[in-house]
């Protein structure tokens, strides 16, 4: 039977929302406080949802320890305590949480120890979050 296993991770990172496609004034209008030239940071919560058949021998969709290792090497080692704007993935893309969510989905999609990546949710604060799924 197909079920889903979810796990939440934390990472702390800084970013600045700014695009070269807009003028300084337009950037301030579009991004407000998030356009502060020196940046700012968040404690992000990354929720990973893995879908797959429940293994008959273990009762599990995916081994938790192996999933933790994949998320650590692909995502948290890369983004935790980092400046997102300096990551090559955001060289030509604004590090909004929408784009971070998609970047994490792409980094993990082919790196799971078992199952398929169903959804990535990134919570930027307690009051806003973003979701990205295999459907788009």
């Amino acid at each position: 039977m197909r079920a889903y296993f979810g796990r939440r991770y934390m990472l702390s990172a800084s970013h600045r929302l700014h695009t070269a496609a807009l003028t300084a004034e337009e950037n301030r209008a579009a991004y407000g406080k998030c356009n502060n030239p020196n940046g700012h940071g968040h404690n992000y919560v990354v929720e990973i949802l893995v879908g797959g058949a429940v293994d008959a021998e273990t009762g599990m969709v995916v081994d938790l320890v192996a999933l933790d290792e994949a998320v650590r090497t692909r995502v948290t080692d890369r983004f935790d305590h980092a400046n997102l704007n300096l990551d090559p993935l955001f060289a030509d893309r604004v590090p909004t949480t929408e784009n971070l969510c998609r970047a994490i989905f792409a980094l993990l999609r082919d790196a799971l120890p078992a199952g398929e990546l169903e959804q990535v949710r990134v919570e930027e604060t307690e009051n806003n979050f973003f979701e990205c799924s295999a459907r788009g």
Partner: protein
Amino acid sequence: MISLTRRATFSASHYYWNDAWSAEKNRQVFGRCANRNGHGHNYTLEVTVAGEPDPVTGFVVDLKWLKDVMEREVLSAFDHKHLNLDAPEFAHAIPTTENIAIAAWKRLEPAITAAGGAKLTRIRIHETPEIFAEFRGES
């Protein structure tokens, strides 16, 4: 179509063990969860049903009724119990979070379907705030 979710908590103990394996392999695969004396969690059960709001009451489902169904079908069997020893579905299946989600679905789905209104669409079981499993009735 509106989805509605009701949450409840239960506290239970369990251990992970596959009788077909050696003790060594059980410890290797399941780690600390293979301790035969068991350990416990405060679980959260989330039940999601979906349907059209009733034209008279505006309800997708009566929440008090859903609470009573969850209490009768799931919490009475799992709360303050040892899942391996007290719940019949885990006499031979390992009470992983995934299997608990499937077991909760099997316990709730007949009662919700028999009521003839909203359909059960998702069970989510949180083992800890960071670890959860979902079952959506897929084969």
